[in-house]
């Protein structure tokens, strides 16, 4: 399955910037049987990177235990309206996707 769209929102709060990001991904565990009765191969996001104005601030490693169509929330120190947030992922098949948002 090809990488689907991502959605992201970055909102400046009094103490931190709240970043919420949604990724479209099957996150197959390799333990589920498909309609043909065969195991569906493991296919899942492995790396998640959060960047602020081009500089990485969070590097995440995840497994197939993360739910389908993963949703992550992160908190960034401070932040200024207009700062550019970029979140990207890479899966075990080498597929990748990224999205950008500015802090609102």
């Amino acid at each position, binding site marked *: 399955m090809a990488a689907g769209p991502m959605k992201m929102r970055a909102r400046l709060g009094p103490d931190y910037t709240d970043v919420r990001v949604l990724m479209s991904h099957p996150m197959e*565990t390799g333990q589920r049987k498909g309609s043909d009765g065969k195991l569906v191969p493991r296919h899942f996001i492995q790396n998640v990177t959060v960047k602020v104005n081009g500089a990485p601030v969070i590097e995440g*490693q995840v497994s197939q*235990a993360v*739910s389908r169509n993963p949703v*992550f929330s992160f908190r960034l120190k401070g932040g200024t309206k207009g700062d550019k947030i970029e979140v990207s992922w890479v899966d075990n098949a080498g597929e990748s996707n990224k999205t950008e948002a500015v802090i609102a």
Partner: protein
Amino acid sequence: MEPSRRKALQAAAAFGAVLAAGLLKPMAALAAAWNKEAFDSKKVDDALKSLGAVGAEASSEILIEAPQIAENGAVVPIEVNSNIRGTTSIAVLVDNNPFPLAAKFDFMAGALPFVRVNVKMGQTANVRVVATADGKHFTASKEIKVTIGGCGG
């Protein structure tokens, strides 16, 4: 060996070296960025060992926000907040899952040691968090009862 052939071989070798230096490096870096050994561990202790987090000290400064009872094991929201000064990483493990380590996040300057992630849980289990600060490891856990497992199908 003919001079032209030697030249060609030398050129090929040089090109190979350039490839090795220039192209293989980012691939190696990418591979190292996913701790295969830890994620492939089937036992919590092995996963902790691979993370280098054996003997983590219990801490009440790690806050785990999660439902006590998860009706659907396929989507269990886990929120982790570390109040330990200088926390640079947070790992989330689900004790009874086939592969306990679910996620690990490294926080650099500019990020707070907080994460919210949805995980799958095969059955009722302890969700264990390991936070690392100044090279020391701290841990906290919370039991989540699962009504319907979310690993197989």
